[in-house]
């Protein structure tokens, strides 16, 4: 117990430091402008706030629509226990993406402009609408938890009544904007390194987001199990993992087929930074997928967790390669984020963990109490009913 206490204090200190740094960076951002807090330039106008906070954030939140589709559309009831926490993860993810966007936009006060000033030829316009609408869908999909907590029967019934079209809308919107984040980069054929520039970018972004979203679901389940003393639902996650492994294997084969069709396979052996980064990305994903194909891994909570980390890091590497490292060569400049950019990003993540914890403490996010956990030691921290914000567990 002592260990847990010390652990919590450790994370609390980290959390406080991140929040302090992040708030200071926020102050600098909104008083002195983007130039004061970022290393962005005319030659490199998009940094980690787009590449990490938005591209990675949206992708990792893809578990929301995937699990919703599995449970509601495919009617696989067995996955229901992980539905709510996954929706919560997705909802928080998307809200935080909008928060990050407020930092990155030069004129955040005009974030509403795409609602009235239309350009249907712009991918960004489409993404803006999808994210806006999907945020609403996620809010409604999570709303039953709020209704149950406060006994709002009418509202709950109303949402239940529209739930089927709502679910379908959510999946369609996700399909659109997950792929469109890849389409954003279709407009930079001369700039993005050929290992990543492909007419299939939207397809790749979509498939890899599904894989990353499922990996994130496993990641989140493990952390919730630790933090709240809930069941990790290992049998369910193990099934997800086998689906994930197949999707990832499919994705990796597609990637190489695409390279072959574009006749750039020879680039795989050119000794330069992009090559190493490409192999790093592929390697991480391949290790994650291979692990998940192995039954012993799927049967062990901690091994499965490690495998999901590999998948998540492979995904992050892919998005950062496309948005940052793959764009550097042609830009004629070098981009390394300023500490303030990193601080804001860390703050956004920390807020995500903290709000998840807070919401999970007060709303019925997890359906049933902990069962006997299969093989790993559960750390019961939930009974502390901590009001204090802690950065995760």
């Amino acid at each position, binding site marked *: 117990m002592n260990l847990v206490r010390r652990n919590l204090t450790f994370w609390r200190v980290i959390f406080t430091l991140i929040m302090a740094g992040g708030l200071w960076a926020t102050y600098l951002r909104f008083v002195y402008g983007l130039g004061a807090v970022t290393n962005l330039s005319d030659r490199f106008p998009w940094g980690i706030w787009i590449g990490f906070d938005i591209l990675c954030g949206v992708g990792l939140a893809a578990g929301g629509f995937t699990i919703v589709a599995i449970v*509601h559309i495919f009617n696989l009831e067995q996955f229901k226990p992980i539905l709510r926490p996954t929706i919560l993860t997705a909802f928080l993810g998307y809200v935080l993406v909008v928060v990050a966007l407020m930092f990155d936009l030069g004129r955040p006060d005009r974030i509403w402009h795409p609602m009235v000033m*239309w350009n249907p030829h712009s991918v960004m*316009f489409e993404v803006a609408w999808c994210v806006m609408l999907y945020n609403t869908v996620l809010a409604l999909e999570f709303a039953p938890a709020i209704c149950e907590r406060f006994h709002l029967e009418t509202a709950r019934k109303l949402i239940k009544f529209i739930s089927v079209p709502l679910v379908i809308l959510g999946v369609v919107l996700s399909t659109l904007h997950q792929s469109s984040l890849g389409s954003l980069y279709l407009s930079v054929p001369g700039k993005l390194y050929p290992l990543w520039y492909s007419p299939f970018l939207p397809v790749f972004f979509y498939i890899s987001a599904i894989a990353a979203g499922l990996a994130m679901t496993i990641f989140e389940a493990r952390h919730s199990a630790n933090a709240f003393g809930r069941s990790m639902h290992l049998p369910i996650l193990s099934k997800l993992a086998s689906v994930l492994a197949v999707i990832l294997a499919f994705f990796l084969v597609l990637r190489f087929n695409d390279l072959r069709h574009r006749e750039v396979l020879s680039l795989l052996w050119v000794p330069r930074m992009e090559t190493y980064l490409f192999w790093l990305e592929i390697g991480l994903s391949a290790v994650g997928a291979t692990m998940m194909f192995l039954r012993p891994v799927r049967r062990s909570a901690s091994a499965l967790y490690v495998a999901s980390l590999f998948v998540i890091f492979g995904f992050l590497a892919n998005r950062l390669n496309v948005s940052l490292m793959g764009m550097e060569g042609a830009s004629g400049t070098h981009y390394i984020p300023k500490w303030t950019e990193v601080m804001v990003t860390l703050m956004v993540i920390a807020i995500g963990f903290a709000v998840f914890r807070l919401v999970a403490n007060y709303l019925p996010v997890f359906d049933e109490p902990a069962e006997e956990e299969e093989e790993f030691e559960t750390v019961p921290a939930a009974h502390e009913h901590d009001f204090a914000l802690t950065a995760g567990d």
Partner: protein
Amino acid sequence: MSRAILYDSTLCIGCKACEEACTTRQGLPYNDKVAAEEQTSAHKLTAIRTFGERFSRKLCMHCDEPTCASVCPVKALHKTELGPVVYDETRCIGCRYCMQACPFQVPSYEWTSRTPRVKKCDMCYDRQLAGKPTACTEACPTNATICGEHDDMIREARRRMAEKPNDYYQRIYGLREAGGTSVFVLSAVPFEKIGYNTRIPQESIPPLTWRALSAVPDVVSAGSVLLGGIYWITHRREEVAKAEGPQSKGGRQ
């Protein structure tokens, strides 16, 4: 009836009069420090670059099908009928996708402002509307920069190349770049030797994203039907089971 600029780098003497005229027109200060900068920026919308004895000039290319205008989510940029690609700062939300997407790396941003704007050459749209030449054309003492009708500028470029084939590298930069532009450049040497990006795609870029975007209605319609159909099938099984459940039990009894 569309206007264009022809910049003949073989005539350019690097006096930077175009820079000064352009910067002054923007109401921005022009001094030795600004003159020494060889890059365009939010406070310098055209720049003369020095390559030994030769000079080159950077400015917005005013593409026929501008990528910047196609990617802008709020239509803050658009191609005018007159030729210039212009920017409406009242619409701009500052996403900087135009900067990210521009194949020529033209748009600049007011990074240090609290209400930043995108800045780029607008080919003196207001002056051209009034029938006047661009400020840079007017200021150029050697006629290295001229402006006029789009097709006339191409004809003039070709005439010069044909007349003195030894003085010119036989290509017009801007004719095919990004599917064609409204700024044409002539040079004595290959363009990459005087700082021009020669790896610009030779076809128009907006169709690349439009191809993906035009699939949106397909995803919405086909996706909804497919998902709705799967829902119907998976839940129908359940209903059938429910309806038949007690009956079949009854049958067995």
